[in-house]
């Protein structure tokens, strides 16, 4: 009984930390941006900040299960949804920044850019997939989906690959940062080598059948 209590306390503390670490920067960002305290081009700043923030949070989310396994601390898995939802929030704001502040609601330009620019197309696909995961993260839906829930949420591996490519293609010349992120992504996926191999095989087998 005592053990159980401390674990739930640990989770509570961890969740509080995540809320603070993820929400406060976002709040601070928009406070500065609305008051023109974010450098000469606040639009670019908010786009880059939320983009890289979403990527960071995705990677942190994918770090949870290998760490939990390594440390034999199963309860850690319980913060994955919160982290994932924050990743979604950052990605959502990233898109909103682009549409509202950069393109200033020029819808035709928006659709043109999404269709014509491979890096934006890929980013958009990643966002739609991430939205699907966010929507299906609600407990009642999760329960209804049964086994197919896990299958759907394996898409997170694909998302993080798409986001890597999106970042890599978006820069003008500074490849160091995108390459570093591709490296991190590869490491995190390497932990799941067997699972991903099985997933790919099952897709392949289903198709040929």
């Amino acid at each position: 009984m005592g053990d159980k209590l401390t674990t739930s306390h640990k989770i509570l503390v961890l969740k509080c930390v995540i809320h603070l670490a993820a929400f406060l920067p976002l709040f601070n960002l928009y406070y500065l941006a609305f008051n023109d305290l974010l450098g000469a081009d606040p639009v670019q700043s908010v786009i880059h900040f939320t983009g890289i923030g979403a990527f960071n949070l995705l990677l942190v989310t994918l770090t949870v299960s290998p760490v939990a396994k390594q440390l034999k601390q199963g309860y850690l898995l319980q913060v994955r949804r919160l982290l994932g939802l924050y990743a979604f929030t950052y990605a959502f704001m990233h898109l909103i920044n682009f549409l509202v502040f950069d393109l200033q609601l020029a819808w035709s330009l928006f659709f043109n850019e999404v269709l014509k620019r491979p890096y934006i197309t890929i980013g958009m696909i990643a966002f739609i997939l991430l939205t699907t995961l966010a929507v299906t993260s609600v407990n009642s839906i999760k329960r209804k989906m049964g086994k197919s829930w896990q299958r759907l949420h394996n898409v997170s591996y694909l998302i993080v690959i798409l986001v890597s490519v999106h970042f890599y293609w978006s820069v003008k010349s500074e490849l160091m940062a995108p390459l570093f992120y591709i490296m991190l992504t590869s490491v995190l996926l390497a932990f799941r080598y067997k699972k991903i191999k099985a997933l790919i095989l099952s897709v392949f087998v289903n198709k040929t059948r």
Partner: protein
Amino acid sequence: MLIKIPKSYDLKESDVTPEDVYLNRRDLLKGMGFLGAGALLATASASAKADWFSKEETAKFKTTPLKYTPDANTDKLILTPESKVISHNNFYEFGAKKNQPAELSQGFKVNPWQLTISGECDKPLTLDYDDLFKMFPLEEHYRKLRCVEAWSMVVPWIGFSLADLLKKVAPNSSAKYLVFETLHDPKQMPGQANRHLGGGIAYPYVEGLRLDEAMNPLTLMSVGLYGKTLPPQNGAPIRLVVPWKYGFKSIKSIVSIKLVSRKPRTTWQKLAPSEYGFYANVNPNHDHPRWSQASERRITSGGLFSRNRIETLPFNGYGEEVADMYKGMNLRKHY
């Protein structure tokens, strides 16, 4: 006699991080996206005062007031505030992020300076620091600056026309193009010493113009802005301003202009020839392969909501003065 056998963990001289890199380590880390979500706070507030990590402000570079003929602003252009003109810069020699040049260039030495004009001309010339401001009468010109990244500014440049300088050196009949070069001094320019910081482009930075483009009255050699000498982040002590071309053509901190007979290969062209051409004329009908050039965001004062997205004009609105030079050329091919 002491024989020192180095242990595997002993540091060699070459392992010591240079002081400037060490002092900027947090920028480096941030630049690489190394820090977690919590530390993102620091990146966001880099330009606000909340950045408690940054080291003490280094002494600001000193600019001095200039004597010049003011621009009458008959076009009624709205200037980009000075604070933004001098804090939002693409000058990879001082860091590839927009805020880095203003932060990492304040110790830059511009005096003494030598600008050499040589090559296919009868009277090669070297200008010293004082010559930059005294050889020609200085004029102020409000000019639009359109970056290839689809943002723009309006800047009150001060300078003289490149044509006046070229007349002095008397180009000969083989002179068809000009090659410009930025100072190469990795000790002063951290981006040249460190690939992470410098965005991985080749140094020294090289740009070029066709002779007739260089002789166009719009082509300015700028030595100042907002009434004073240039700060380093804007290309002190002397830079080029070609307002109908994308900003990367307007090379900064120039030490050499060479007249040549063949079209030079320029820095961005070498890096990505399909994305950046030699001419780089502002052209809303020819998109960058990865983003649209049809419109731009004009950087003015105000926060997130006060930004203006405006249509991009052919030749950045300077077609009347420059379009003739490109008659009969396919500008989609010669982008």
